[in-house]
């Protein structure tokens, strides 16, 4: 880890201002991903702004029947929240499928959204990686790519976004509330928060330098049956090979988002019109134009069968 100056911010405005005026600064919340990357010198901030004392750890109902989740709410507390368990069960389920209890106690809502890929080549500083060193090449393309993306990929990067939580927030149509360094606020639909890799895989989201996520807003509950199904190499504490977040209504309509397949939470709204026609038709739309490697081609069928299983469960 390289040296850094540590500062505990006391207000959102102060945190954003420091970030705007300090080169190579990073916000730190739970630290479960950032510190890991700093130890490997994949991340090399020279200024750490601790945002744990900003009072962003509340979960409150919104005036229009939704829920406002503070950016610093820990994953454990969000999963255990009574309203989330009752009205947004897919979110609870996704959180509980992720990481270990220790990590969920540390990890925060905004940190979870902004965590970096777990592509092994991104972590290995001896290997080329366009995300870590723009222009150096992609070691995963032609390398070991069993975990990697199959849709929205580019010739520069086939990394996936590793979050379970974000997949469920995508299916819930969440929006992200931020404060910019100049003090102005804005909301970003979660569909527009993360970017596809294109030829700039090192730019992963649409936030400006120093822009701080303050909350995630869930719209009014939509009812339906909430399912989060994660398929992984072991039964607990592993990243997804693929995952499916679904909300299925009594009439067979619904929403579906897929994890472990793309650089961002993957949802194709137009494809959802085919939900009543079954998993094959639905998956054909969700994974249209999939570009696989010999290592990860299995994911296409795995998504189809997992969606099939989820739709079956929703009927029961």
């Amino acid at each position, binding site marked *: 880890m390289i040296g850094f100056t540590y500062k505990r911010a006391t207000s959102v405005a102060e945190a954003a201002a420091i970030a705007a005026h300090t080169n190579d600064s990073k916000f730190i919340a739970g630290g479960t991903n950032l510190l890991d990357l700093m130890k490997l010198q994949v991340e090399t901030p020279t200024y750490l702004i*601790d945002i744990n004392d900003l009072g962003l750890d509340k979960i409150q109902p919104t005036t229009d029947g939704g829920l406002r989740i503070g950016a610093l709410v820990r994953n454990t507390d969000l999963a255990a929240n009574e309203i989330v368990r009752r009205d947004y069960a897919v979110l*609870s389920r996704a959180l*509980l499928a992720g990481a270990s209890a220790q990590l969920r106690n540390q990890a925060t809502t905004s940190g979870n959204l902004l965590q970096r890929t777990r592509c092994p080549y991104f972590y290995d500083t001896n290997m080329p990686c366009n995300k870590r060193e723009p222009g150096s090449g992609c070691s995963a393309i032609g390398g070991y790519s069993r975990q990697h993306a199959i849709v929205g990929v580019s010739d520069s990067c086939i990394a996936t976004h590793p979050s379970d939580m974000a997949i469920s927030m995508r299916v819930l149509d969440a929006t992200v509330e931020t404060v910019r360094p100049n003090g102005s606020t804005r909301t970003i639909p979660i569909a527009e928060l993360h970017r596809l890799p294109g030829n700039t895989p090192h730019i992963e989201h649409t936030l400006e330098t120093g822009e701080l996520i303050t909350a995630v807003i869930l719209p009014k509950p939509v009812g339906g049956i909430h399912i989060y199904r994660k398929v992984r190499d072991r039964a607990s504490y592993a990243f997804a090979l693929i995952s499916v977040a679904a909300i299925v209504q009594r009439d067979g309509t619904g929403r579906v988002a897929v994890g472990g397949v793309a650089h961002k939470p993957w949802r194709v709204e137009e494809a959802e019109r085919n939900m009543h026609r079954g998993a094959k038709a639905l998956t054909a739309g969700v994974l249209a134009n999939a570009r696989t490697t010999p290592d990860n081609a299995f994911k296409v069928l795995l998504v189809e069968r997992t969606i099939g299983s989820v739709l079956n469960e929703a009927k029961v």
Partner: protein
Amino acid sequence: MTEFNPSRRKFIQTTAVTSGVAIVAKLAPEAEAKSVLKPQQATQPAKVNILLRVNGSEHQIMIDPRTTLLDALRERLYLTGTKKGCDQGQCGACTVIVDGRRITSCLTLAVMQEGHDITTIEGLGTPTNLHLMQAAFIKHDGYQCGFCTPGQICSAVAMLDEIKAGIPSHVTTNLNKRPEMTNIEFRERMSGNICRCGAYSNIQEAIAEVAGVRT
């Protein structure tokens, strides 16, 4: 307290020196590979003065802000019960309890934990006054080499509290009911603690006994 000088480290150092040239030659490619890492900053960051509250005692220490809570506990407060396994949050050997919640102490900075109540294995019990969970691990032989044990025990103690607090898990069938004290729940909730000796079934028996569950 004087200089911290664990015997195992001394042993490894001595062994390395006496084993001589062959080992040095073997290590060379690794050293070369490491050179691609960015060089350390020329100027080291200023040390910071922090107050850590551990097992009910307060400790004022000057530390490099890069120090993880784990390293501060072990290398500065000499509380070596907490173990460093992977140092990347994957094994759970460094699990401690902060404000009643179990966390991996390798993935948080000591400076971030100022003002919090930290409990390590040394704070749970002593050889003459064991915590119930420690006694149960001994009774059920919940270890082999013992390296993961302090983390397992801290994790298990906090895990039972999480169930009591109604926090659900991946295997909780009904999210709208209180989770139950079952072996299935214990197994899922303890997945963040790896035991490479494979003492899992005995660990589970120890936990079940403390929880008052029949195995």
